[in-house]
Each structure stands twice: as structure tokens, then as C-alpha cells.
């Protein structure tokens, strides 16, 4: 079975992440961990790595898909930008998630959620400059599974206050 890493930058671009994850050190760390396939969703980015640009890994690159759910399901490790949608989708299918923050977007409120999920031990967190080191040393066994939300509690509450019960 080929172990797959899926990298997603969401709806914008994050060339620095694509550059870091295809760097020599990062690729070496991934190969050492037994990964053999790298799938990159690059959005509007300018960097489009070739299939043979990372020794030891087969690389597949695409810009956008209607849904990245299939890619997430096939992945063993997800490396994502800090967007709330991408984080929740990856955790929703119970994948090991490493979030790479974009230092240039520090005031972006979307970072709030990734930071919070990190403090609650649902994902790992690093920046582009520490990505290669993180890939070499990370330990997902410390993480706690992210349980789905409970909309039925909302429904029960509404039934009561609206007089439907």
C-alpha cells in the first residue's frame, strides 16, 4: 500500500508551503517515514512541481477540484493551510493533520480555529520555516481524535424552547 501525503492550500495560494514541502529536507523526511506519494493542491499558486521533482516520491499536482474529500480519504497524512474549512474537513475524516501557518497572514481570524484545535491536541502546527524539522520529528500519537459536533443537542434545545415537544 502506497502511503500518501496530501497538501492543500485552499481557495487562494500559498507558494511558500509548496516550496517548503518539496524541499530536499522535507522530501527526505517524508521518504524516511515511508511515504511514497505526494499530492499537491496548489490553488492559484505559481509553483507547479513536476511529477519527478522529488526523489523517492511520485508527485501529483492540481489546482482545484469541486471536492477534495476523495483526496483527503486516500491520504495518510494531510498538510494544510490554516483555513477553517480545510482543517474541519480533514479532521472530519479522522486524518492526521499538520497545519502550516502563513506568517504573512497573522491577523487572519481563520488562524484562531487552527490555533485552538492545536491547543486542544487535535492537530499539529508549524510554519514553513520549521516544516522540514517538524516532518522529521512529529508524533501524531499524542493527538486526541476530533469528535463530530452534536447538532442533535441544538435540535433538542430548539424543540423545547419553541414548544414542539
Amino acid at each position, binding site marked *: 500500500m502506497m502511503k500518501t501525503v496530501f497538501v492543500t492550500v485552499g481557495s487562494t495560494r500559498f507558494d511558500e508551503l509548496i516550496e517548503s514541502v518539496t524541499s530536499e529536507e522535507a522530501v527526505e523526511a517524508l521518504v524516511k517515514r515511508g511515504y511514497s506519494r505526494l499530492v499537491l493542491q496548489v490553488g492559484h499558486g505559481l509553483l507547479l512541481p513536476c511529477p519527478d521533482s522529488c526523489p523517492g516520491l511520485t508527485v501529483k499536482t492540481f489546482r482545484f477540484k469541486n471536492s477534495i474529500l476523495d483526496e483527503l480519504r486516500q491520504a495518510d497524512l494531510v498538510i494544510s493551510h490554516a483555513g477553517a474549512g480545510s482543517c474541519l474537513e480533514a479532521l472530519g475524516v479522522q486524518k492526521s493533520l499538520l497545519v502550516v501557518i502563513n506568517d504573512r497572514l497573522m491577523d487572519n481570524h481563520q488562524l484562531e480555529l487552527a490555533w485552538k484545535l492545536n491547543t486542544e491536541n487535535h492537530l499539529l502546527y508549524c510554519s514553513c520555516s520549521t516544516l522540514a524539522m517538524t516532518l522529521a520529528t512529529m508524533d501524531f500519537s499524542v493527538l486526541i481524535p476530533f469528535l463530530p459536533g452534536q447538532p442533535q443537542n441544538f435540535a433538542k434545545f430548539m424543540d423545547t424552547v419553541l414548544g*414542539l415537544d
Partner: protein
Amino acid sequence: MHALWGILAGLCLVGTVLFLRFYIVLRNGSDCKPGRKGCVSLLVVAGSGGHTAEILRLVASLSQSYSPRHYVLADTDRMSEEKIHTFESSREEKSVFTIHRIPRSREVRQSWSSSVISTLYALLYSIPLVFRLRPDVVLCNGPGTCVPLCAGGLLLGVLGVKRVLIVYVESICRVESLSLSGKLLYPVADYFFVQWENLKAKYPRSIYLGRIV
């Protein structure tokens, strides 16, 4: 001169009456139990992307008694309509639902001053729509579009036509602070949900039931 004073006094009187009505309407929300008649008509405000996904998860949890369901979305939103159709056709029991479009009140990163103008423009469309649909409940979770629709719902109450309950669920993305729509609607929403404990501490009127999406 006397006429001017008369007009001014009249305006003050109308203003005071409206303010008192507004105050009374806001206070009696918990007495309003539209479910007692057997069903609750729902106006669901869909935003773009993540907002729509979250609100559909909430609607999915609600029973068939929440019917009919009227979805309102911003007219620049291409994705949501398809998602709503997919969602409604996947429900086991089919029921009445309608989809309506209004001008978007605020694009992401739009400036404050132009937001005010586009919100007023959206209000022109929202008020007649809410008056026509007369929902029991407006359910929303933060896209800018929900502000004029909630204003329409409140106006129905102030004018004594119908008490429309406003249910606001802050997005799970908001951990430390409320969104702009959340801040605007916190004082007037009948049921205001947050999904993180620290927000509950900052906003004591809010309801925290853990993560609900």
C-alpha cells in the same frame, strides 16, 4: 414655527412608541412558542461556502416539524443553491422548501462605509421578503446577508404583525471573538449560540451546548 414644533413632538412620540415596542418585543421572546401550533416555519439564511455547510448541518438535525423552510441567499453566491437542492432531496421525508435571493450586504474585505450602503440596499429587498414569508424563526450563522433579514423580522414584531424569533449560531471558526454579524445581532437575537467556552464567558447571554456543527 408652531407647525415645526408639532412635527418634532410627533416624531419624538413615534420614536418613543417604537422604542418601547422594540423593548417589549425583545423582552418577550421566551414567551413565544410557535411550536405549539404543530409546526415552525423557518427562514434559513445561507451564506457562501463554510457558512452554508454549517447551517445545513443544523437544519439536518431539525425534525420535519420545521416546515416550510425558506432559504435566502446572496445573489452573488453560486454554490449554495446547488448544495441546498442536494440537501433537501437527500432528506427522507420530502417537504416544502423555497429558495430566495437578495443582494449581498457585504463582501469579504469590503470597506465599512460601502458596507453600510450595500446593507441599506439589501434591506430594501429583505424587508418585503420577510413580510411576505412571515416565518416563525429566522435561523442564521453569520454571513452579512443575515443582518438585514433579522432587521426585517424584528420590524414585524415591532409593528405588531408577528413575533419572529431570531436564532443565531456563531460559526465554529469564531473562537476568541464574535463575527461582525454576531456582534450586531447579539443584543437582539432571542437565542444566540456560541461553540466555544471562552466566547460564552465573554458573552453571558449566549448559549453554549458544546460543538453543534
